[in-house]
């Protein structure tokens, strides 16, 4: 039986952590993810769970301690945002190359500067090449559901990679919404116990974790990470299927919303997808125009072929990025979606817009305007302003 509740995104993640009851959680507070370690520390102080909380002195130490605990054989996780994750930079790469199945609750926040506490994806998108699996959420329900699926993906023997469970700072992290919680017994059964194949505290198998790798070994290590990321595709879908059996809620690499017959589509990540859905409903109801949405859930590994197939019939596509990469062209999602479409020899016209940087709001009306532009491009067969902004003050 699902439990009907109303929780903020941070409360939902903290509750998921309580239900999973990991062995170790080192963390250092940073807005807007601070509440997650705060709530977990409260659960521990109240004697509700037996997790070892390590109040470290920085995020660098938070991820270092998480690495250590995970390498020792424990189930370990942490939470952070923005500059906090930036301070973990070296350890992010170490976690992935040491093949440590760590889970991190990332509450997306703009990276400085100017200093800003609000949502965009510049923190996690900057870490897209670090070797972590990245899963994004539209709502509190999704971030909770994704979090429950994180350890089964990370710890699968064919994967053994760290997983970042991302949600939009303040928008979902501090927004209270209805949510259906899974009963704790079912969560525990779903997530199971960690049974590491190799671990540091195994006296029968002395081993080193993270030693120096000369050129003769480094490249093979990277290939191993790539194979693991490829394997993650299958495992992510298997875990999602098992999750659907438990809850009835279906997840894949992405969600297709009114996309099947769509002529004009938006590709987007995160909480703004919900606002876009309202625009899709409104346009379809008022005008009958065939507009649709593809919401990316899994950005790493990138679902290249599946995404191109889902968009193969669409005339014009707007890819919306909530972070810059200063290529002086588009953003990271735009680049990857277009590469996927090129590989599939798709002939859709594509534009790539920036939105929501530093928490700039995006509304139903903004999405309506994007769909109007897509329609115009399709009619005129001419792409103008391929790279542009939504909601920029002029």
């Amino acid at each position, binding site marked *: 039986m699902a439990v009907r509740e109303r929780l903020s995104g941070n409360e939902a993640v903290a509750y998921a952590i309580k239900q999973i009851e990991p062995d170790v959680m080192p963390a250092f507070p940073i807005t807007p993810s601070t509440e997650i370690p705060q709530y977990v520390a409260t659960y521990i102080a109240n004697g509700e769970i037996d997790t070892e909380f390590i109040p470290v002195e920085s995020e660098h130490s938070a991820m270092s301690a998480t690495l250590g605990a995970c390498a020792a054989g424990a189930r370990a996780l942490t939470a952070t945002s923005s500059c906090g994750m930036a301070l973990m930079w070296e350890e992010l790469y170490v976690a992935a190359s040491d093949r440590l199945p760590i889970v991190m609750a990332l509450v997306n926040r703009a990276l400085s500067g100017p200093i800003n*506490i609000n949502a965009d994806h510049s923190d996690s998108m900057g870490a897209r090449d670090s070797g972590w699996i990245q899963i994004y959420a539209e*709502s509190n329900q999704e971030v909770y559901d994704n979090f429950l699926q994180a350890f089964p993906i990370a710890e699968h023997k064919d994967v053994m990679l760290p997983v970042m469970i991302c949600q939009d700072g303040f928008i979902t992290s501090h*927004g*209270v*919404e*209805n949510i259906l919680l899974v009963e704790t017994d079912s969560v525990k059964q779903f997530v199971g116990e960690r049974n590491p194949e190799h671990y540091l505290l195994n006296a029968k198998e002395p081993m080193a974790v993270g030693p120096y790798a000369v050129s003769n070994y480094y490249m093979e290590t990277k290939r191993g990470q790539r194979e693991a990321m490829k394997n993650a595709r299958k495992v992510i879908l298997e875990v999602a299927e098992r999750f659907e059996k438990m809850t009835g809620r279906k997840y894949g690499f992405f969600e297709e919303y009114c996309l099947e017959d769509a002529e004009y589509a938006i590709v987007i990540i995160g909480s703004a997808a*919900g606002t876009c859905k*309202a625009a899709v409903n409104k346009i379809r109801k008022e005008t009958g125009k065939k507009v649709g949405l593809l919401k990316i859930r899994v950005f790493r590994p990138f679902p290249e072929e599946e995404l191109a197939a889902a968009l193969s019939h669409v005339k014009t596509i707007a890819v919306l990025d909530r972070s810059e990469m200063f290529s002086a062209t588009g953003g990271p999602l735009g680049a990857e979606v277009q590469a996927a479409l090129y590989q599939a020899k798709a002939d859709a016209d594509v534009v790539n817009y920036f939105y929501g940087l530093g928490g700039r709001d995006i509304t*139903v009306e903004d999405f309506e305007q994007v769909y109007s532009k897509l329609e115009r491009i399709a009619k005129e067969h001419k792409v103008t302003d391929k790279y542009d902004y939504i909601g920029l003050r002029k």
Partner: protein
Amino acid sequence: MDNTVEIRWHGRGGQGAKTAALLLADVAFKTGKYVQGFPEYGPERMGAPITAYNRISDAPVTIHSNIYDPDYVAVVDDSLLESIDVTHGLKRNGAVIINTEKKKEHIMPLLHGFEGAVYVLDAKAVSMKALGKNYPNSPMLAAVAAVSGVMPKKDFLREMQASFAHKFAKKPEVIDGNMRALELAFAEVEKENGCK
């Protein structure tokens, strides 16, 4: 969107406008609604103007933007009226509810010609009378519930009673005072302004 009620709260950091929005979401949730309650943060300091929002609906709400055309606006601190156009975007058939010691006719000139319904409540006086302390949140919450009609009065009071019983489990002596504040505020808004 048709059956979604949208509410915007204006307050100052530390006054509890965000808490009020979350409490309203809470009580609406308990009466079976789909709810959203969320703050918009500017500079993080006491006294800075802050905005919080509610969407309350019979169907799931997926929109994650702020609210620009609210059905109702609640103003927790009347000193904001001089610097912020609180009725901006407010629907003409909507209403603004203002916590103030002033009379309505003194407030009207500060509302930029807003033509919809205006309700005033002296939440401080209500709180002092009921609780002996100035906690304007509970009276404002009751006023918003009364004016918006998002839930029947008896459901609202029943759920708030349960909420207070939980929240003040270790201080049960303040539960009655808080409930009295709600009822007084409800009555005040109905009497002064003639509610639907």
